[in-house]
């Protein structure tokens, strides 16, 4: 600290502060510039091919021609499976951790700790696990089902932590009032807590969907590469993110449809994120009114 007080004249301090400020502002301009650059490139490259027909046509000639309808269908199915598997488990976990057992109990700590580690596992590891467990051990092969279940494992931490935050933000007075009225815990949960926490849960759900839609590495060896329209959940189906990867790396001349697919993916995620932000806003306003 003493260094800051030595008798230099005031000018040199001003100069130092100014230099730092210029450096920080140039870093900000750099980051924003690159972000806009990426956005601009994607829009310029993708808008040429993007049309209603592109969305509703099946891919032909390894994806060079045609559209992405079957890819979108596979993506939707994988997401659906992932959510159907992950939501009950993660919401049950969140309710248990906040409403039924103390955060300091050994079981609670173990669950929370293992979810915290799970949140940091790289997606390629989920891919390896899904391949070894769902595809080979359970015999599901390269299928939409095994891809969806792998994604479900990946979504657990984010779904649990958002649902937990939603429940914890409900004022304690609500629970006290419910007890005073003689309600059971389950009744309190369904009639009092969940309606209040619903927007937070919806926001968490959307964040989860966004995370899942962006995933590639975990699905490479679980849901596979086949770009036909999936006929059952045991068919292999290529998701949108993997389609972009395959077009740009393995298909010469696939850049134009890859750009268009990337634009579709980004727009999809943007809409999901904006709706999630809207829900968070609603929830915060509700919370303010409640207090």
């Amino acid at each position: 600290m003493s260094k800051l007080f030595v008798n230099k004249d005031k000018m040199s301090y001003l100069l130092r502060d100014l230099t730092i400020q210029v450096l920080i502002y140039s870093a900000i301009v750099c980051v924003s510039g690159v972000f806009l650059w990426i956005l601009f490139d994607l829009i310029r490259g993708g808008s040429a091919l993007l049309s209603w027909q592109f969305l509703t046509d099946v891919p032909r000639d390894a994806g060079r021609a045609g559209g992405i309808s079957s890819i979108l269908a596979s993506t939707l199915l994988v997401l659906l499976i992932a959510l159907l598997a992950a939501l009950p488990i993660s919401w049950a976990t969140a309710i248990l951790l906040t409403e039924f057992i103390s955060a300091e109990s050994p079981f609670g700590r173990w669950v929370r700790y293992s979810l915290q580690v799970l949140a940091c596992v790289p997606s390629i590891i989920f891919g390896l696990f899904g391949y070894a467990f769902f595809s080979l051990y359970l015999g599901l092969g390269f299928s939409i089902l095994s891809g969806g279940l792998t994604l479900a494992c990946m979504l657990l931490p984010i779904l649990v932590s958002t649902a937990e935050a939603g429940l914890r933000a409900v004022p304690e007075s609500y629970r006290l009032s419910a007890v005073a009225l003689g309600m059971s815990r389950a009744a309190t949960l369904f009639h009092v807590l969940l309606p209040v926490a619903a927007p937070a849960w919806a926001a968490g759900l959307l964040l989860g969907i966004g995370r899942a839609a962006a995933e590639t590495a975990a699905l490479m060896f679980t849901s596979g590469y086949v770009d036909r329209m999936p006929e059952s959940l045991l068919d292999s189906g290529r998701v949108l993110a993997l389609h972009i990867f395959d077009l740009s790396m393995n298909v010469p001349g696939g850049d134009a449809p890859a750009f268009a697919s990337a634009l579709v993916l980004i727009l999809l995620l943007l809409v999901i994120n904006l709706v999630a932000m809207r829900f968070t806003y609603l929830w915060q306003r509700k919370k303010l009114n409640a207090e």
Partner: protein
Amino acid sequence: MIWWKHSISFLSASIDRWFSAALRIGALLAALIMLFILLFLLLESWPVLRHIALMRFFTDEAWHPLEDQYNLLPMVTGTLYASSGALLLAIPLGIASALFMIFYATPRTAVLYRRLIELLAGIPSVVFGFWGLTTLVPLINQWHPPGASLLASILILTLMILPTLALTSYAALVAVPKDYLQAAVALGLSRWGMIYGVALPAARKGIVAGILLAAGRAIGETMAVLMVAGNVVQHADSLFAPIRTLTANIALEMAYAMGDHRAVLFVSGLLLLLLVIALTIIAAWFGKTHHV
């Protein structure tokens, strides 16, 4: 709180017990997944761990998996070079972003910039990789062929871990008590004097935790690096040399790997997992608060 066992909306006396039991099963499943992942990686890599000495992954002549040569070292250095390079670039940029949002920007600009960082965090890794492949790689190629290189992967990784660093540093700096900053201003410290002398030291632990989390992300990133790194198995001798990382190696060879080769890929997955878990545990110890 004393919870009443009967109610007009749920008449069964034991509803809470049944409900709680069902919830416990769900939570147990959620917690078991981490153990399952470890178990299955171990199971799949066991055939190789049993009959190949661990040292061979570092002393074999080269990576020729089809001829029983399993030297993972080039991939390990590739991962280390790329992630440490990205950290070197992203740490100053991330901390500068956090400082900007708290100490320099007007509230409106700060919110706007925060949204931008959050959107950057939401861009899928495959899109980063695709942008790198179509924009960055040709640019580097003009400057110094071949383009797909260590430099390209460092730059792309920097963009990908920047949001993690910016948001965790932001959270750590916001948590610094206002009294400290007011005291610093009252003592006549200039803005940078306050940041450097008071705010940064007070937020140090949270920032370090963020750096460790970002390191974990950089090490584990697959798709973006796979697309821009060139994927040649070699020790990089310059920034422009193509490299292959551990994650890219798994993604590239898993599709056709058989027998021992496949088991070795699972071993490298296990290695990665343990590394990332270690980083996470140290980060949790530093930060005490977790960031999902």
